[in-house]
Each structure stands twice: as structure tokens, then as C-alpha cells.
């Protein structure tokens, strides 16, 4: 019975997701450009993160896996209800996880959210998807002790 109680406690306490991304998968399409300039970047704010207060001050990092990446993608957290948004992060395949939200308090409100603002950009010299294929980023958001 002791073991069952401990297991039930663990599952009830820690079994729920500590961080979730809402909004699903997104496609961002760059369609126009400026003569003598560059293609016009595209913004997407359809996704949000929900995260839970932890026993220690925590933070969220972000990293991408995008083999054969051709174009540029960056993300910044906006409308952060708890914690501090980090500066805009360039998502580059192979780069280490980088801070997205820091100083998430270990007390107070249990659940927090933020909006993910993605910016897709490219240069004319980077080419187009017809010739190079799309960039498909699998982006990982990690909640961890700071």
C-alpha cells in the first residue's frame, strides 16, 4: 500500500505535462521581395507555450533540428505571464538550446503562458523552396531549473 500511495502521489503531482506547446504545426511562406533589397519576412504568432511552476526557479530553452536548413527562422516569447522573455533567438540547426524565457518563479500562480512569435526570413542569395526544398524545423522547448 505504501508503494501504491507513493506512485499515486508521483503521478498526480508530476504526471501532468510541465510544458506544452499549443497551436500545432505551422507553415510560414515568404512570397514577396523588394527590388534591390531582400524578400519580405513573415511573422507567425499562432502558437503559445503553457508551462507550470516548479520547485526551483526555472527557465525555458529552445532548439531546432532542421537538417539541410536553407532559410532563417527566429523566435521570441511575447505576452509572458510569468518569467522574463529572452532576446530573439535565431533557430539554427545544430545550435545548442538557447534561453527563451528565464526567471520563472517557483512560487505564486501555478500555470503560465507565453506567445511564440516566429519570424521567417531569407535573402535572395539563399534561393527558394522550389530549388532547395522547404525548411522543416522540429523545435524543442525545454523547461528546466535555472
Amino acid at each position: 500500500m505504501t508503494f501504491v500511495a507513493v506512485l499515486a502521489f508521483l503521478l498526480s503531482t508530476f504526471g501532468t505535462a510541465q510544458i506544452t506547446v499549443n497551436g500545432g504545426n505551422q507553415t510560414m511562406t515568404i512570397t514577396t521581395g523588394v527590388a534591390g533589397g531582400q524578400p519580405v519576412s513573415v511573422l507567425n504568432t499562432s502558437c503559445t507555450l503553457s508551462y507550470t511552476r516548479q520547485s526551483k526557479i526555472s527557465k525555458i530553452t529552445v532548439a531546432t533540428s532542421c537538417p539541410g536548413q536553407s532559410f532563417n527562422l527566429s523566435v521570441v516569447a511575447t505576452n509572458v505571464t510569468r518569467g522574463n522573455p529572452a532576446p530573439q533567438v535565431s533557430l539554427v540547426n545544430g545550435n545548442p538550446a538557447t534561453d527563451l524565457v528565464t526567471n520563472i518563479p517557483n512560487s505564486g500562480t501555478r500555470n503560465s503562458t507565453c506567445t511564440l512569435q516566429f519570424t521567417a526570413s531569407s535573402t535572395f542569395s539563399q534561393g527558394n523552396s522550389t530549388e532547395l526544398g522547404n525548411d522543416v524545423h522540429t523545435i524543442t522547448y525545454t523547461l528546466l531549473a535555472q
Partner: protein
Amino acid sequence: MLKIVPLSGTLCDGSSVRGSKGTEDCRNYSITVFALLFGILPSFGFGQTYGSATNRITVKVQAITVLQISAGIINLSITGSNAIAGQDQMMTTDQTSTLAWGTNSSTKKITVNTSLATPKFTLQLVALNPTVGTAASQVTLSTTAADLLTNIGRSSGTCGLLYTAIALASQGTGTDAHTITFTVATQ
């Protein structure tokens, strides 16, 4: 001292138990203890990482080609000041306009042609100081597209446009109105 009370499993001697309340010092359950302490619990917040989530963002860039001329209308007038006594040919030039482009497709060039099928006078054009690509030699404008700039693929750049109007005294007077088309084409 952590005491593990197994619900079910295999004892050290190989016999099965279920709901045992004993205090068997069993290696199998010792492994379970380590798994809990060092495998499962850290992922629930006793270590550095509390959790993670993923989604997928696809970035698609369409084939984009843009061209822009700095001046809409250019007038070249050949007057008496352009004439040299004893010479049939008179000419004037204009260098006030520029061409800007951007293309993210490879192997591209810029061609030029005029809408005027039978001009009375001659109009020539050459690209000056292109920031990217190779300027073709001076083009005499006709309805057939001719290369103005080559090797501009996947670039953004600018160049000057030098128009030269040529008239012969023997051709008399008149006006040619050209509508000039610049095109980014596959090289």
C-alpha cells in the same frame, strides 16, 4: 534506510510473489530503487529538466523575382546642338535612370526589348556598373529581347542605364515612342 515493499515480481530465488509484505532483500527490487532514484524521479523535477514539448515549423520560400526602374519616362531630344557640321550622325545620351532587381532563382539574366517595331531612329542601351552579374555589350533595342545583364541568379542588385539615341540628318525629324520591357529570364 529505504524499504521497498513489492507488489509483485521475482524474488532472488526465482519464485514469484504477489502482494508480499515481507522484507526480502532482493537484487531485482534494488534495481527498481535505483531506477526510481536516478531514472524516473529526475525527469519529474528532482533533476535539471522538468519537461519538454515540440512542434514543427515549416518555412517555405516561393520563387521571387522583382524588378524596378527608377524613372518612368525618359526623353532624349536630338537638337541642333548635337549636330556636327559635315557629319550625318547625331546622338544624345541619358544616364539618369537605374534598374534594381531581386531574384532567388539560379541561372537568371535580364533581357530588354522595345514595343516599337519600326523605329525611325536608333535607340541603344547598356547597363552600367552592375553590383551583381555581367553587363552585356550595348544593345540596339528591337522587339526581340536581348541580353542586358547575365549571371545575376540568386541576387539583389542595381545598375545604371545608359540610353543612346542616334539619328541621321538624312532621316529628318520625328519622334519615336518606345515602351521598354525588362525581363528576368532563365539563362
